[in-house]
């Protein structure tokens, strides 16, 4: 159970890690737009180079970036096949029985898959280099303008922080309870689907009970430290934009400009 890396944060102190989380969130959104702007296959080289550059700067092993694609493998293969067989085209490359694979379809399949890979790979760089806590802090500040419209930005960020904080705790607890029930001879592995689902009850009931207990205790602890929502609350680490943030934004913007200009001819 220890290998579920939620948020998959890769601790470090690179220039990318030190960027303001707000910058990273906004640039991630810009990056997504950028990837969708690309219409020519070869222009994907630009975001690819960008991802490579950031990975290098962040000193993250390439393996970690690639690992973020793993949950996607079936979707990728599925999309590739669907596009390969169902896209209309004229230049026939191969004919197998009654199925024709055309040049256009192959191009389309490669194009869609590249887009997906770049989207997920690129965005995972943000979660790899930003700790969940600073991520929620960044989100809170970005959403703050909307709180005037009644949007509970602080509460949302606080809930996210608490939820993230308790994921490892609850995982550990689940693991412990599972072991305790195994020691009592519980069997989680055999039987059909229903039997296995039923066998989870001895884990889930104590887990829920303890989650509620923890929630109660936490609420009490927060109240006893005078927590009363976000109003007038200050931060220990005040987020400030630095020159590096401007540089990162400039880099990505020029990349976007390059893509737009290079495609303007079409």
């Amino acid at each position, binding site marked *: 159970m220890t290998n579920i890396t939620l948020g998959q944060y890769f601790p470090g102190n690179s220039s990318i890690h030190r960027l303001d989380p707000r910058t990273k969130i906004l640039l991630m959104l810009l990056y997504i737009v950028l990837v969708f702007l690309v219409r020519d296959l070869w222009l994907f080289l630009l975001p690819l180079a960008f991802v490579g550059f950031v990975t290098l700067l962040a000193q993250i092993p390439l393996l970690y970036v690639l690992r973020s694609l793993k949950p996607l493998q079936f979707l990728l293969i599925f999309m590739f096949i669907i596009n390969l067989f169902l896209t209309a085209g004229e230049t026939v490359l191969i004919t197998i029985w009654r199925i024709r694979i055309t040049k256009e379809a192959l191009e389309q399949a490669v194009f869609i898959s590249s887009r997906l890979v770049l989207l997920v790979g690129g965005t995972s760089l943000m979660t790899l280099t930003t700790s969940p806590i600073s991520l929620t802090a960044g989100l809170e500040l970005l959403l703050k303008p909307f709180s005037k419209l009644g949007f509970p930005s602080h509460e949302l960020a606080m809930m996210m922080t608490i939820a993230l904080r308790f994921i490892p705790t609850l995982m550990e607890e689940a693991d412990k309870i599972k*072991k*305790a029930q195994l020691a009592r001879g519980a069997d989680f592995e055999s039987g059909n689907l229903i039997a296995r689902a039923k066998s989870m009850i001895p884990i889930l009931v*104590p887990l829920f009970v303890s989650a509620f207990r923890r929630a109660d205790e936490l609420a009490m602890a927060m109240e006893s430290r005078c927590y009363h929502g976000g109003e007038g609350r200050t931060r220990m680490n005040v987020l400030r934009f630095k020159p590096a943030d401007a540089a990162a934004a400039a880099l990505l913007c020029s990349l976007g400009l390059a893509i737009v200009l290079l495609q303007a001819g079409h």
Partner: protein
Amino acid sequence: MPIILENISYTYMPKSHMEQVALSNISLTVNEGEFLGIIGHTGSGKSTLLQHMNGLMQPSSGRVTVDGLDLSLRKARIEARSRVGLVFQYPEYQLFEETVYKDVAFGPRNLGVAESEIQERVEEALTLVGLAPELFVEKSPFDLSGGEKRRAALAGIFAMRPSYLLLDEPMAGLDPSGRRAVIALLQTLRAKTGCAIVMISHFMDDIAKCADRIAVLRKGTLEMADTPERVFSNPEALLKMGLDLPQAAKLSLELQKRGMPVPNGIYKEEDIKRYLVEALS
């Protein structure tokens, strides 16, 4: 036949940046019917060691056998769990059934015990832990008090009738009378069934009172595994490891410092009492 640990080592998350050696090269035997105390500083690998004894964890290297069953085999592990009962820290958090009866019956039922015998076992286990069956079987385990919950959880393990009982700090979070009750309970259980007990505890007095042998762990290595007399006769070593001494050992140490000829190796309350009465009369 005993539980035998042969040169076992265990590493958490090997080959990652979180790699951590929890146990290194430990060899230890738990004999039938004995009471083995395990002491050590927090994080010294006590709980990890305990979980190796019933196959919940498997060593990165080395071998564990329970009554000759090699725990590297899945079948042997499942068989071993019917002989080796493990009580985790705060066992009350594992209660889940609607009634105390069902919860205590969970273990024996998993072992495939016949329904008629389950009832007998549940009643016996509940009586043993001091929860009168006629009052408690129909109650929800979540309605019990803290101490009762812990007893119910203990009963759940006792009902499996293990030949080895492993306990991970069974007294944690209990008040002195609760602690005494648990100790008395373990002694009764042992007298009745003759099962071996392995207990982790930070309470040296409890260890001193019960243990036939004590294993001392330090940073994942086994420092000593010897009789209490020998373990407690070297107080400096224990104190250096951040461990405590039983009150009686502390007292005799202080008396020695002040020039009283207290013999070495006194660690039990009744022994120091007897010595003092003799010396002062």
